């Protein structure tokens, strides 16, 4: 055991894998030392496990209606009560974690690489390409995200795929900014000059030498942005532009419960707790990652 730890913490790793594992180990230690980050990590892990094993965790079928059981308060049979069609809210919240996870992962998978490439190309090319790309980025950055996403979905048509596209369109500029700032530093370093002297193309330098160095700050930013993505997706679902019935999306569930909020409070309240907890988890984890990976900026 102690041998493994010494191998992980070795100051002069002999292989790439040893260096990577060592860094991962140090990161884990740093996260574990920060109680709030641990809470965040546990929440995010729980979300992933819930989504993966939803059929085992749910007590009922999330879309099976039972009109005799409609609008029942929380009880032993229905932990979070039932909605206006007699569906079990707990099971719907559990299955809803799959939707939420899909949305945040797809948005991150579209927006982060797009932003990274735009930022890195701008920094590496410089000149008018840089000015044009960053001008576009600034225009998108100075616009309200939710409204823009709303307008995009309104034109594309309601639905979960279009909601994902709209949120991705509004969230890439932040990543482009970060990637450009990082790439500006890297492109002047000597190893980039060395690769260029060996005749590597601009594209190759960007993809295999600049982008990998932007990844860690990108992961921090994506984790911090997850809460915002979840809230925007839920907002679109709430207005009726996101996931369509009977899909158990949390925002849409709150919207259904709106008519019953005064008497049957649980219908709208329960999915909201899920959103709050999951968003908070991503915020805490993101803060912890930032403190661990980027010691220059420590704030609350």
């Amino acid at each position: 055991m102690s041998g493994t730890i010494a191998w992980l913490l070795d100051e002069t790793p002999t292989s790439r894998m040893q260096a990577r594992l060592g860094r991962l180990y140090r990161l884990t230690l740093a996260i574990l030392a920060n109680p709030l980050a641990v809470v965040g990590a546990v929440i995010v892990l729980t979300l992933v496990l819930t989504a993966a094993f939803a059929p085992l965790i749910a007590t009922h079928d999330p879309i099976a209606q039972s009109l005799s059981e409609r609008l029942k308060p929380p009880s032993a049979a229905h932990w979070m009560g039932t909605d206006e069609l007699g569906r079990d809210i707990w099971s719907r919240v559990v299955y809803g974690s799959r939707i939420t996870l899909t949305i945040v992962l797809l948005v991150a998978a579209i927006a982060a690489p797009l932003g990274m490439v735009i930022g890195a190309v701008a920094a590496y090319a410089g000149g008018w390409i840089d000015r044009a790309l960053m001008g576009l980025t600034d225009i998108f950055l100075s616009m309200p995200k939710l409204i823009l996403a709303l307008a995009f979905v309104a034109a594309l048509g309601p639905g979960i795929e279009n909601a994902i596209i709209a949120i991705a369109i509004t969230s890439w500029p932040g990543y482009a900014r970060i990637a450009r700032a990082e790439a500006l530093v890297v492109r002047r370093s000597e190893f980039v000059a060395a690769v260029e002297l060996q005749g590597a193309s601009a594209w190759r330098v960007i993809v295999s030498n600049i982008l990998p160095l932007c990844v860690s700050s990108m992961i921090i930013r994506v984790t911090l942005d997850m809460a915002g993505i979840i809230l925007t997706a839920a907002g679109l679902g709430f207005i009726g532009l996101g996931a369509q019935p009977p899909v158990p999306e949390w925002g849409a569930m709150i919207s259904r419960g709106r008519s019953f909020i005064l008497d049957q409070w649980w219908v709208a309240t329960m999915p909201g707790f899920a959103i709050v907890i999951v968003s908070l988890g991503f915020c805490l984890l993101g803060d912890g990652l930032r403190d661990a990976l980027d010691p220059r900026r420590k704030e609350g």
Partner: protein
Amino acid sequence: MSVEASIAPVPGVSRRQGTAGRRIVRLAQNLGAVGISVFLTVLGLMAITFFIGRVIPIDPVAAAVGDRAPKDVYEATRLAMGLDRPLYEQFYRYCVAVFRGDFGMSLSTGNRVVDDIVRVFPATFEMASIGIVVGVLLGVPMGVWAAARQGSWIDQVIRVLGLMGYAVPAFWLGLVGLAVFYARLRWVGGPGRLDIAYDGMVDPVTGILLIDALLAGEPAIARNALWHLALPCAVLGFFSLAYIARMTRSLMLDQLGQEFIVTARVKGVPEWKVIWKHAFRPIRIPLITVIGLSYAGLLEGSVMIETIFSWPGLGNYITTALLNADMNAVLAGTLVIGAVFIVINKASDVLYRILDPRAR
């Protein structure tokens, strides 16, 4: 990010103090540059709304008149919209129309969109403005307090509150607020701007009900309006408070770590004076940017809040139009909120430059 970048301390640049005249010239140049940048950004915003309205829909005519319009209406609209012309000319005509204030007709209300927006905007303005006042009055002292007691339980509570601002959906908080404070406790008024009994009893002069009611000499109606404003403004105020407290805390911590603070403490300056006179003074200017961003954010946040509280403002107008596929109204609303957002951001930037002696 931009806030943090713009408030980074400027390293001790010793610049020769210009004469007053030169300062005014430089200020005018700055304002000119900001004006151009606002113009370009708004133009970009218009390019986006144009793109959303004319390029994305497969059939923009059907999107404008509905798919059950008779053939001749359809054809007339197609020509009126200039869809037979090249795209760049369409965009030029769109820009000219928008600068004239012509956003077309609204399908859902049957009025000119610009008239609708002028009518509903004051309701949003009233709500967001009271919200930001709540946020500043509570958020700034809370941030200062948390920084002064860094690591204490009060600091932890304020930090968690700050994070909640990023994690709680505004529409959900509004609903829970209605269930608790309106339905159960009866502490605040329900949805809408007034009780039904008072509806339409005050002539809209400014459109801001509190002022209109007082102008009309109806304190009872003003009180009722305040009663209805309480909950939506509290919800908006919470989000602005969370952001402002978080930023104030981090700005204060930067200041409290500086050497002149240590010097002041060593000299025996009382602690309240160290906090408010030495540490707080320098952060007043960056705080303006923070407050500006937060205010712009509230205008956007009001879209969700207005839906919950049936508040007849711009946000409600947009969501109603969305559900009726009334794209003229949706895009005009998007454009107005976006433009106000851009102007507030740039204005706080300009104020920052005017007030900060290092950036002059």
